[in-house]
């Protein structure tokens, strides 16, 4: 009756024991790797910035996260006097909840008994739903702190999440449309087909198809925004909001927020890999096909090597590698791009990502229904129409109008100046 339980049982045809094992593996790996990620971020960031970074605790500073954890654990837990106590305590827990539940549908290998935890029918929507819950922890933390910077951080996170959730949803819609399934395992499985349906020795990773590339890039951008990472880290902008939503948090509560952020990043890297990068396949080559060819060419050692590379034992490693690559990408972004301004954030989300994603969605639909020829024809017509409209509109627009800069909250002095000049 309870479908999440039945789904757990159904995908292995097995008992609750297997389910607990699956949960245990994922939890163990995530909890074990998150400190490592923090170390990796600090080292890599230092490298980008021409510094050394933590290198004292243990070999290469590897034990630094543990030292950090111990420090945070034993720090004084300050609760400011004017916070909303209940929500202030709940917020970190609420922030951690989606960071871990999102792992439930992520497949990290071909063995259905071990992964994913629940191969539910609505896996892709599940990701969207859970990631949309992620903002509540930040939001409540910001509100309950009773601090204007925190409140602003919470507000920003809410606005950002709602704006980027849409583009992410439409980008995922393209994948759903192309695969005809909401199941993540099915999405991964379909990427093992021949590339574009014609190249038998390669795999059809969605990132390699034209529509998949667009959807993938949009998903990549929105997933950075959803996890509130640079350059979309407006909710916790240190320079303007003094860390925003977690200004008032200290000790373990702060650590929990921190952990939630990294777990979510890690999960999203995995989801991106599963949706666009062929899941647990190391490179977009059709390993069985190649192994078959190697056998035909009488090279049994190559064949067995190829089958091993594409086989179930190595699969989790490739998956982990891709997730690790995703995290590195996150860090790289942080080191490279400056933080967006609020209006830039909104412009990017609403005026670029969402329309492009929607157009891409239409493209996939036309391609699926009528094939590539019709698609290019339709695109050409659309393009001509667009050019015509743009020309028409731009000809009408008076040349001397300069767009007015509008502030959401104009500073008081501006208004005063206007009054003075008028009188």
């Amino acid at each position, binding site marked *: *009756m309870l479908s999440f339980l039945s789904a757990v049982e159904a995908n292995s045809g097995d008992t609750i024991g297997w389910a607990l094992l699956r949960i245990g593996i994922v939890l163990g790996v995530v909890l074990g790797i998150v400190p490592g990620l923090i170390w990796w971020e600090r080292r890599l960031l230092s490298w980008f910035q021409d510094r050394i970074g933590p290198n004292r605790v243990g070999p290469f500073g590897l034990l630094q996260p543990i030292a950090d954890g111990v420090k945070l654990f034993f720090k004084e837990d300050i609760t400011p006097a004017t916070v909303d106590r209940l929500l202030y305590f709940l917020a970190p827990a609420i922030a951690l909840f989606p960071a871990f539940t999102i792992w439930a549908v992520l497949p990290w290998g071909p063995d259905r008994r071990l992964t994913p935890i629940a191969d539910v029918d609505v896996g892709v929507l599940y990701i969207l*739903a*859970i990631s949309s819950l992620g903002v509540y922890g930040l939001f409540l933390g910001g*509100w309950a702190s009773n601090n204007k910077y925190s*409140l602003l951080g919470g507000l920003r996170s809410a606005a950002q*999440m*709602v704006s980027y959730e849409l583009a992410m949803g439409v980008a995922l819609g393209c994948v759903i449309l192309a695969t005809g399934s909401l199941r993540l395992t099915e999405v991964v499985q379909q990427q093992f087909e021949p590339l574009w349906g014609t190249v038998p020795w390669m795999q059809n990773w969605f990132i390699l198809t034209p529509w998949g590339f667009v959807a993938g890039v949009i998903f990549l951008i929105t997933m950075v925004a959803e996890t509130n990472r640079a350059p979309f880290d407006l909710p916790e902008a240190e320079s303007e909001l003094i860390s925003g939503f977690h200004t008032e948090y200290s000790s373990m509560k702060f650590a929990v927020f921190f952990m939630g952020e990294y777990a979510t990043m890690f999960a999203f890297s995995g989801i991106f890999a599963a949706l666009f990068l062929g899941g647990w396949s190391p490179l977009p080559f059709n390993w069985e096909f190649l192994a078959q060819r190697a056998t035909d060419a009488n090279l049994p050692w190559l064949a067995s090597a190829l089958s091993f590379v594409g086989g179930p034992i190595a699969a989790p490693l490739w998956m982990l590698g891709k997730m690790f690559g995703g995290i590195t990408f996150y860090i790289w972004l942080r080191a490279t791009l400056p933080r967006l301004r609020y209006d830039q954030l909104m412009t990017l989300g609403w005026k670029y990502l969402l329309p492009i994603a929607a157009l891409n969605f239409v493209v996939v639909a036309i391609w699926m229904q009528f094939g590539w020829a019709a698609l290019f024809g339709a695109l050409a017509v659309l393009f001509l129409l667009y050019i015509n409209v743009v020309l028409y509109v731009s000809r009408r627009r008076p040349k001397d109008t300069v767009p007015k800069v509008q502030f959401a909250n104009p500073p008081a002095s501006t208004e005063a100046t206007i009054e003075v000049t008028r009188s």
Partner: protein
Amino acid sequence: MTLTTFAFLVMAVVLVLSAWGVVVAKSPVRSALSLVVNFFVLAFLYFGMNYDLLGISQILVYTGLIMMLFLFCILLLNLGAPDTLFEPSLIKRSLAWFVGGVLVLAVSSQVIGPMATWSTSTPTAPEGFGQAASVGQSLFTGWVYGFEIASVLLLVGIVGSILVAKRRD
């Protein structure tokens, strides 16, 4: 009591309590949060009946987006606990209690009866009801008219909200 019944009872109690919280909470944020909990647990009730798509849409649309906008508005306007919501007139308050009570009695008297005979007359939904495939089927076959009208409704809403925002100049 089976596991199913137990799960249902737990969720039902949480649902009712959170619905109660929406009404009685003094601060708008608490009120909205109760609604969030309510929507979230409601989704699990759907899951319990295998309405996967319905449940996940409930979380995605209501808990994730709509309630987020609610909270956003509350915070943006920085709403405190309103004093004006208290109704001083005893007559009006008792009238409200009376009407509310009658409605509760009317609905519960109708629901409890069938519930008591649950095991004998379990209402059964068709196979696959509330799951992605069947919802898609009915949206694009029998209910395509309603589906299109809903899109008209959204179009009107978009144009309207742009008009409301645009008039400010």
